[in-house]
């Protein structure tokens, strides 16, 4: 008897198996559709590496970058190849911080905080506050439990349990105008330092439990702060090429003079890194890449030919640099010019 005839012999069985198959197929399809597009998770995209990226961090040997549309990418081979992480967010992420090779946090718009426990490959959402209508702008952890996030309108959030709960502790700062807090950094042997809008500065010597305002020398906005290799020494930088250095945790400041062949340097500065080899690199608008080999006392000024706005920098082997900003990831030489091969 042919198969066809057998099926006709038991029509109900044929019908049931068809129905089962249909249900199964639709479940599989629905599941797949969910994974592809739940409206919440970042979309896997080949262009992610070329979208707007804002910050870069090192998780052990691994490089992790974050940016627009919930894009987080990581590379285990010095930026040669990038993998897009699974991220439950489509928001613009503004900062990323790894406290060790596995534990990291990223913050962004909608006051989102995302956390990873596997070196940046997968992320989950710890905190979000749509009602603020304001972004978090930087994040820093002292250990795997204790961390701070700063943001717009004077937001200061703290966690003591690795991000399970976040508490708004903005009132620890004397910030009546609710100025944006743009960046937070650790200064060697002394404590924490926050910079923000209109040249505002705050410091804490007791792991962020109490904060004091620091009268700064500059009234324009500061976008970043970086603790250097030396004790009590830090750099603060912001609008129009303003770069300040203090060797005494902010008591006194010195303006670093920056100049180009064609006059004074005046591009906004947005990100900085202290590299493993001791160099200090500051990046900013108009393709600016400032490099110091003396702990930030003097800088040479480089301008990338493409003049793109850069947001952050990290070090690579052989003095090369990983730059992120407009156009995503740029692998560059020690002066910030593009290498031949781009990811």
């Amino acid at each position, binding site marked *: 008897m042919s198969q066809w005839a057998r099926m006709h012999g038991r029509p109900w069985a044929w019908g049931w198996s068809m129905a089962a198959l249909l249900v199964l197929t639709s479940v599989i399809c629905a599941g797949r559709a969910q994974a592809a597009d739940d409206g919440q998770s970042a979309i896997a995209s080949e262009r992610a590496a070329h979208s707007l990226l804002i910050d870069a961090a090192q998780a052990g040997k691994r490089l992790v970058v974050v940016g627009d549309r919930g894009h987080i990418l990581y590379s285990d081979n010095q930026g040669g190849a990038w993998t897009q992480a699974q991220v439950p967010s489509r928001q613009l992420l503004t900062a990323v911080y790894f406290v060790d090779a596995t534990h990291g946090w990223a913050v962004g718009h909608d006051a989102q905080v995302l956390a990873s426990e596997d070196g940046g490959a997968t992320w989950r959402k710890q905190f979000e506050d749509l009602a603020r*209508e304001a972004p978090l702008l930087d994040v820093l952890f002292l250990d795997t439990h204790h961390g701070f996030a700063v943001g717009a309108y004077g937001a200061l959030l703290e966690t003591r349990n690795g991000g399970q709960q976040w508490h708004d502790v903005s009132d620890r700062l004397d910030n009546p105008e609710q100025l944006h807090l*743009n960046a937070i950094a650790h200064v060697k042997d002394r404590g924490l330092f926050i910079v923000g809008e209109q040249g505002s500065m705050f410091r804490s010597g007791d792991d962020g439990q109490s904060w004091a305002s620091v009268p700064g020398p500059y009234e324009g906005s500061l976008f970043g702060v970086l603790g250097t290799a030396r004790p009590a020494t830090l750099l603060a930088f912001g609008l129009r090429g303003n770069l300040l250095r203090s060797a005494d945790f902010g008591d006194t400041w010195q303006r670093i003079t920056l100049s180009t062949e064609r006059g004074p340097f005046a591009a906004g500065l947005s990100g900085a890194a202290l590299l493993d080899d001791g160099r200090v690199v500051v990046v900013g608008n*108009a393709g600016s890449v400032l490099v110091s080999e003396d702990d930030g006392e003097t800088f040479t000024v480089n301008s990338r030919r493409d003049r793109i706005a850069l*947001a952050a920098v990290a070090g690579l082997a052989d003095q090369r640099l990983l730059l992120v900003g407009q156009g995503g990831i740029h692998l560059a030489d020690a002066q910030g010019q593009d290498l031949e091969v781009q990811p």
Partner: protein
Amino acid sequence: MSRQTPRAMPDEQQATALERLIFNHRPAVIILCLLVSLVLFWQATLIRPSTSFEKMIPLQHPFIERMLEHRNDLANLGNTVRIAVAVKEGDIFDPAYMETLRQIHDEVFYIPGVERSGLKSLWSPSVRWTEVTEAGFAGGEVIPTPYDGSPASLDALRDNVLKSGQIGRLVANDFRSSIVDVPLQESYPDPLEPSRQLKLDYQQFSHQLEEKIRDKYQAQNPNVEIHIVGFAKKVGDLIDGLLMVALFFGVALLITWALLLWFTGCLRSTVAVLLTTLVAVVWQLGLMHAVGFGLDPYSMLVPFLIFAIGISHGVQKINGIALQSSDADNALTAARRTFRQLFIPGMIAILADAVGFITLLVIDIGVIRELAIGASIGVAVIVFTNLILLPVAISYVGISQRAVARSKADAHREHPFWRLLSNFASARVAPLSVGLALLAFAGGLWYSQNLKIGDLDQGAPELRPDSRYNQDNRFIIEHYSTSSDVLVIMVKTAAEQCSVHSTLAPIDELMWTLQNTQGVQSAISLVTVSKQVIKGMNEGSLKWETLSRNADVLNNSIARADGLYNADCSLAPVLVFLNDHKAETLQRVTAAARAFAESHDRDGLQFLLAAGNAGIEAATNEVIESAELRILLLVYLCVAVMCLITFRSFAATLCIVLPLVLTSVLGNALMAFMGIGVKVATLPVVALGVGIGVDYGIYIYSRLERFLRAGLSLQEAYYQTLRSTGKAVLFTGLCLAIGVCTWMFSAIKFQADMGLMLTFMLLWNMVGALWLLPALARFLIRPERLAGTRGSGLLGH
């Protein structure tokens, strides 16, 4: 031929009513034709080139319907011309360059039709640099004040340009050229009489750009090179190209005249044929204008076709009259006999042409329909001019004795060439021919898989890839961050809702989805502007370059997004820049956009496809793709039915139609080989090629059948056929091919493509009729069954 004509009855008794009507009132016929010609000539002189945009697009396609529905809201997207002024040596920060740029800016300002307030270049006060300072925004004009051309002021200029954000827009990425952006007004007040509005004349405007800008300043400053692109320039170039076509008509006329003279050996009949055919062309043009059509780049083909078809019918007539003259008493008798003999086959051939043209009405594109109607009018006119007026005219002027003597000699001598060709009908050669045809058919079918829908070249598809315009276009694509292929998706919301977060966030997502679609370069919309402005409001920090959830912030942020939303904030276009306009690219991107619309459309938010040149091309491609098969089936069906009615025989129909099928397949393969896509311009060629190509088959088969009925063997019957009509068929093929092949030299790409394809189709159809038809007849026709019977078809009288 003449030997087969029964001579028993007097001519007058054999004549049909129509023949009597015409030949008994010859002066009336001539005068009537003269009067009609005068009226229609007057009409024809009034015909003007028309480049109506709407006629070139499929108006019933949903993309186009939505585009036209929202036309006013999209108006700002604009009709602009961009003039790139490039330096050959050095960069733009050079006093001589800046001076030339200033002069060009000022000169353009005064060209009529320019929307002066929108004119933009480095020299316009509206082009500014901005910078965020401690005190807020600072800014100024990019040209520093004072500017004196000194190195210091050029340095300041360089700094300002860097800060202006115009790199890739007004200034090339490599600083070696900059753009004068010239928005145009469709109508503007007459400078002499300000109350009157003048319509922008694209051709004149384009010429002014050439003379007053390109020629003048390239001569004045040898270090600059000027590139001009934009819709107005393109249309101007197209109209110039159209006028060139008139020249081609003259060339075709001359060549045809020479060929005719060689063929007939008689100046009188040559002039008669040319004149009556020109009368046909004049009538056709006059009638076109009378029914309200203009001459567009497509319907320009019609006069050429009508001329070629007219000549070919004229040649058949002259050939017949010359043969008749050898034993008729006078020119009148010869003309009458020829009229009697050729009127029916001529009518059938013309009907076949008309059927081919009429099938084109299936395509929902104005220019194609006008072409179909225009060409149908044209062939109808040929019935009057070449089937009626020509024999009447010849009955007066006659044919020169020399020509008559030649045809008399021809009728009796042996023709080795035709004898050789008659082997195509032999039992030995026929299987070989059929085998070869099958091989060519299979090969053509296989190769035509590579055939693509749509336009395949970069740049403006209407013009040749190496044309001045497309070179300029390439320059701008290479040096600036823009593309000339733009798909516009219209996002429709309730009034005042285009700037809320729940609208902007999905638009942002759409843009990202599309940017991740292969073939998309970039996308801009009011979201792009909003993000930039929000970043700017936050001191230029990249950390803020995203949409805000705050309604006031969003509202403020789009205030300067002119043209990216409409007056009542209910429609926002998303401009998607594509790498090219190949069919696959368009299909992929529109499919992605449709899928997005399906999953994101809701009450009060709709994503509508599509506008922009790429949107129009996508719609056109869809229409073409769906019409292609229908046209082919329809035209073959019509032609087959006509053959069936004419010959009352399936075998005969196959003999005539199969060679045409081979031509169509090979034509497709040729298109694939030449990189010509199936598009508005080439689709009609299929129908025209088949419709006209069937003429040869009808002429040849009708004679062949007659000789077979007379009891000749197939090969002998074919020899007789060739001897009497082969020359005329060959000549007809040449005439038709010459009529259209001059088009290959047109500056307009699609006319060149049409010319090439039509030439191929017409020549190859002739080859098919002469070579393949007899071979097929060897297999399909039983001569012994035809022998001695009287035909039952239309020709069997």
